[in-house]
């Protein structure tokens, strides 16, 4: 009986072993950018004067590198679309009736998210991760270092909670080492069967403290129909 108890304890200890940085990163990607999904979101950008602008949008993602956004509000941006394909992104402007290339560093609709924050959640491909001491209780921290100059940030510190590795906080640094953004992930909820993720992300501008942008997920459905044609440049504006 004693032997059984010891073995059981050993097994529990083995299961509770600390995850590696790579495992945390892979889990983050799986939570924030799962394979194929469709989502409705609302983004509110708060500016320095305290006023805010709210944008409605639909996301469609397929595989690791195909992403599409349709803007539905406000009226002045309705009809705009964004397509990301690998390292390439295009924006479609209905007023111009055409698509043009955009760089990954561009801010997402003038808010505090970068295009890459929204369109490219594949940190495992873009950054190398190492474990770091976490400033929050019952959490892990990983530091991500950019693999190339093409990424939106030079360094990121991610904090995830123990147990399910759900993201709690992110700190984003520029090449000068200055923290330029910080994100808080809250309202974790089960959006699809067995799939839990943060429902609200607040991206704080750390350079201009009065600015912040909040992204709220309204729906988030996995494994939806996402034909490859929706991820072609020719489909923009259709």
């Amino acid at each position, binding site marked *: 009986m004693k032997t059984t108890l010891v073995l059981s304890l050993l097994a529990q200890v*083995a299961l509770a072993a600390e995850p590696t940085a790579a495992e945390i990163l892979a889990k983050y990607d799986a939570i924030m950018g799962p394979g194929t999904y469709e989502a409705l979101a609302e983004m509110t950008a708060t500016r320095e004067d305290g006023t805010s602008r709210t944008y409605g949008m639909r996301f469609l993602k397929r595989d690791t590198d195909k992403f599409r956004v349709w803007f539905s509000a406000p009226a002045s941006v309705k009809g705009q679309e964004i397509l990301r394909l690998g390292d390439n992104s295009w924006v479609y402007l209905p007023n111009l009736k055409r698509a043009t290339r955009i760089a990954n560093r561009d801010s997402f609709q003038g808010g505090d998210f970068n295009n890459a924050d929204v369109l490219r959640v594949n940190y495992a491909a873009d950054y190398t991760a190492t474990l770091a001491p976490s400033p929050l209780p019952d959490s892990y921290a990983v530091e991500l270092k950019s693999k190339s100059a093409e990424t939106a940030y030079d360094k990121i510190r991610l904090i995830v909670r123990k147990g399910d590795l759900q993201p709690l906080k992110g700190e984003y640094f520029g090449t000068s080492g200055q923290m330029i953004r910080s994100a808080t992930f809250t309202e974790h909820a089960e959006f699809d069967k067995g799939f839990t993720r943060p429902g609200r992300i607040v991206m704080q501008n750390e350079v201009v403290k009065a600015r912040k942008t909040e992204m709220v997920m309204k729906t988030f459905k996995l494994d939806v129909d996402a034909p490859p044609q929706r991820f072609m440049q020719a489909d923009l504006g259709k």
Partner: protein
Amino acid sequence: MSNRLFIAALALATAAFAQEDAGAAPVERAPESAVVVAPLAEAPTVEPRFSKLVDVTGYGMTRTQFTRARTWGLLPTSDLPQLQQLVEFNTQVKVSVRPRSYLSTDISLVGSWGGFYRGVDADGREVALADKASPQVQPLVSINELFVSHEFLPELNLLIGKKRIVWGTGLAFNPTDLLNPRRDPTDPTFQRSGVWLAQVEAPLSFATFSLVFAPTVLKQTAGIPTQVLGYPAFDQKDTQLHYQVAARAYALILDTDVTLMGFFGNRSVDDFEAKPRVGLALSHVFGALEAHLEALFQTGSTREVLNSACVKDVMGALQCSIAKTPYATKPGLTSDELRPKVLVGGRYQFADDSLLSLEYLYQHDGWNQDRYQDFANALGLIPEGRAAGVDVTNFPGAGALFGVASSDGLPVRFAFDPRGRHYAFLTYQKPRVFEDFTLSAVVIANLRDLSTTVTPSLIWSATDWLNLSLLAFVPVPGPDALAVKTQQGTPITEFGITPFAFRAMFEARAFF
């Protein structure tokens, strides 16, 4: 059971239990250890799918414009209203007829009023002219787009109707655009009108192929086409079919947009008959810099040039008139010489989201110094023609400088028709100069004579649905040393002879 097997069984059982627990809970239970920073949340209510059966959007726009007529210049100003009020009501409707079919419309009702015309009397003094119904102040319906699209297969779709299709990568100018009404580079959002066409498109995994047939609209009334493809027997201006066939292959190769285009047109956008042309467009992003190239390769040219002998002086003009020698011809129409048009440029996005775009346009068939000198000589004849009572409004090549209506009837503030060989387009845009204010400037320069047009603007996004804009349009003559001169010694540069000194406008656009 060995110890190893027992441990494995325990581990599996624990994992299975953990999974079952997670699956049983519709709303996440946060681990107790994380309660400080991760509050529990209810799963959001599932909303209906985003796609709607009918999607309506649009805007109302009013533009008040003051133009200072340059009555002291060479070009006539009698058709140029100094004060103009433009009102546009635009609606864009997309109707999902079936899951794979939709109807799309983008229609504008445009009303305008113009007045305060100015001209000169026989002594050359500025005088007020009576208001008139010039082409710029006609009300019209502008069908920018009206088409039906159906997807037979994910890899095959058909589109029929009027649509603006742009395959080129140029921002201010598209040399390969042989289909659409030309865009005003200082006001690109105003020209959204397309052409009537049928398009078959095959978006495949490795490339997209498109084939377009666009019959030419030969006549239209208030934006509504009344004659397409050919002239009827009772009004047979010619017996030919007027059309453009265009094909393209697009692929993303090494992170570069690569578009190959082929055209075959017959008296469509120009006077070429049975003319094949080839186009190429590339675009690549290097960090924050987008670089692009757009080129059109064709033999011959439809560019109009003036007959030197007819415009050198009054006597030459009279002799040509008596001999019925045309003042302007298109000598390159049947030439076999390769005449490419190439645009290269880049767009750089700064860290503060401001944007700088610079493009260079080369036109092999553009006017050289001698052609510009002929133009200057002809301009020098205008005062004498005016004094003799000859209508000089339709002076060859001058129409582009009048701010006339575009080919589909929409009034444009600047009808850009580049006649030279070398041009530069510079655009700078800085959003959030104050919270909702965007400052921008567009400069178009003729690199031969360094004359420019400068278009500064300040746009205030007052609310989510209202934009207020102040714009100016200032032509700047180049240095006299680079100008060609009339017989009277007046320096002539391309943008220095516009029939107006400046334009200023206030625009309010409310979206719905």
